[in-house]
C-alpha cells in the first residue's frame, strides 16, 4: 500500500493555500492531520495530483469563546478538543473528540479535516449537527458561514467549492438549562462507530423545552426527525418518552447493513443509544455528573 505520486505544497499562509487551490481545482486535496486523507491515498481513492499541506498554518487551531459561541479552529486536533476546558461546557463535544479512534489518531486528526471528509460514519458530522454548529469557510471569493445542516450534503460530499477551506467550527454555548451527550457503539477503539447518537436537551421544570436528536451511521448523512423531536417537546423526559421518540427517529433512518452489523441490529442499537444519550443529557441538565464514554463490543 502506497499513495500514488503527487506534488507536495506547503503554503506559508491561508491566502497562499487558497491561491494553490484556485490554481489546481479538483486535482488538489487539502492535507490537515492526514488521518482520513492518507489512508484514502494509500487505497488510491481518487486522483490526487497536488497535496496542499495546511497542517502548519498558524492561528487555525485555537479554541476560544466569542459572543456566547465556542469557536474551534479547523486545525484543532481531537486530542486538543477532548482536553479543552472551554469545550468541557459542551459534553457531547468532548465525548465525540475523546472517542475518536485512538490516542495516535486523535493526536494528529483535526476537527476541520474530520468534518470535511463527511464520512457517514464519522463522529463530527453527527455530533455537530446535534449541537447546531456552524462552519466558517474561506475561499477565493471571501469567507462565508454555513449551518452544519447545509455543510454536509451527501456521503463524503460537502458544500465546499474546490478553492475553499474550512477555517473554524462555531458551536453555540448552552444556557444553564441545556446539556448534551454523544454516544457511539464501536467494535474497537480504532474502528469507526457501528452507530452513534447525539442529543441536546433544554429542560425547564423537568419539561423539555427544546431537543435535538441526531443519528450517525444511519444513512448517507446525519439523520434527524422533526416528528421525533416534536414528540418530546413540552413533555417530561424519561426512559419511556425517550424510547417512543427513539422508535420514531429510527423508523426514519436507513442504516446500511455492512461488516459492522445488519440493518436490524443497527436499528436496535440506535434505539438503545438514543435512550442512553437522552438519559445522560437529562442527568446533566439536572446538574448531575455523568461519566462519558462510548460503548464497545
Amino acid at each position: 500500500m502506497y499513495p500514488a505520486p503527487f506534488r507536495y505544497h506547503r503554503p506559508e499562509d491561508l491566502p497562499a493555500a487558497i491561491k494553490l487551490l484556485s490554481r489546481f481545482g479538483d486535482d488538489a486535496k487539502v492535507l490537515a492531520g492526514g488521518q482520513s486523507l492518507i489512508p484514502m491515498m494509500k487505497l488510491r481513492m481518487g486522483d490526487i495530483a497536488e497535496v496542499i499541506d495546511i497542517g502548519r498554518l498558524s492561528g487555525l487551531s485555537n479554541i476560544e469563546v466569542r459572543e456566547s459561541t465556542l469557536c474551534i479552529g479547523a486545525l484543532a486536533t481531537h486530542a486538543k478538543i477532548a482536553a479543552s476546558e472551554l469545550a468541557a461546557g459542551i459534553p457531547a463535544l468532548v465525548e465525540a473528540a475523546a472517542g475518536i479512534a485512538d490516542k495516535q489518531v486523535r493526536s494528529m486528526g483535526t476537527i476541520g479535516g474530520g468534518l470535511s471528509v463527511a464520512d457517514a460514519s464519522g463522529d463530527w458530522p453527527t455530533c455537530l449537527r446535534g449541537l447546531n454548529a456552524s462552519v466558517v469557510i474561506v475561499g477565493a471569493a471571501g469567507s462565508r458561514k454555513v449551518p452544519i445542516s447545509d455543510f454536509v450534503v451527501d456521503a463524503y460530499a460537502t458544500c465546499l467549492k474546490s478553492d475553499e477551506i474550512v477555517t473554524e467550527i462555531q458551536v453555540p454555548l448552552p444556557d444553564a438549562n441545556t446539556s448534551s451527550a454523544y454516544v457511539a457503539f464501536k467494535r474497537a477503539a480504532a474502528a469507526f462507530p457501528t452507530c452513534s447518537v447525539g442529543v441536546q436537551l433544554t429542560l425547564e421544570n423537568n419539561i423539555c423545552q427544546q431537543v435535538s436528536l441526531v443519528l450517525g451511521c444511519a444513512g448517507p448523512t446525519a439523520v434527524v426527525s422533526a416528528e421525533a423531536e416534536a414528540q418530546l417537546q413540552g413533555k417530561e423526559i424519561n426512559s419511556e418518552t425517550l424510547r417512543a421518540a427513539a422508535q420514531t427517529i429510527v423508523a426514519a433512518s436507513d442504516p446500511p447493513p455492512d461488516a459492522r452489523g445488519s440493518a436490524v441490529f443497527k436499528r436496535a442499537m440506535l434505539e438503545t443509544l438514543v435512550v442512553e444519550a437522552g438519559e445522560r443529557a437529562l442527568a446533566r441538565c439536572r446538574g448531575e455528573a455523568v461519566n462519558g464514554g462510548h460503548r464497545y463490543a
Partner: protein
Amino acid sequence: MPESVVVDVNVNGVAYQREIEPRLLLVEFLREEIGLTGTHIGCDTSYCGACTVTLNGRLVKSCTCLAVQADGGEVCTVEGLEQNGELHPLQEAFSEHHGLQCGYCTPGMLMASKSLLEENPSPSREEIRKGIAGNLCRCTGYVNIIKAIDAAAVKMQGV
C-alpha cells in the same frame, strides 16, 4: 516523476537529511531511508499501532503520516528508549513480565505505554487498557503487557 522534497528529521537525537518522494510514509522513511527497522509495519491501515512513534512529542501511527509532515521535527522510535546501554524501565518490565509473545507489536506497545506514563505516571489497570487501545497484539497477550506497564509505572515512580 513528481519533484522530490528535501526533509530534515531528527530521529532519536540524530539529525538526518534525505531527498525523498512526498508520498514516502514516515514508517518507510524510518525503516528504509535511515535503516531503523525497530518500528514495524503491521496492518498498514492505521489500525494496529505496530508502527507507533512520537513526532514532536505526539503519539502517531507512522504508517499514517507522510515523512514530509515530519520535516523539521523530532521523532522518537523504539531504538531511542535505551539510554547509554541501559534498557528503559518499560523495556525491562516487558522482559521481566513476559509482556511479549511474538514481539511484533512490542515497539508500538512500548511507545504507546511510554506516552501513557508521561501523561499519567500511575495509571489504573483500566487506564492502561485505554492507553494502549490503539495497539493490537496479534498473540492476544494483553494480560502480561498490562502487567508489565503497571510494573514499570511502579518502578518509575520509585526512582
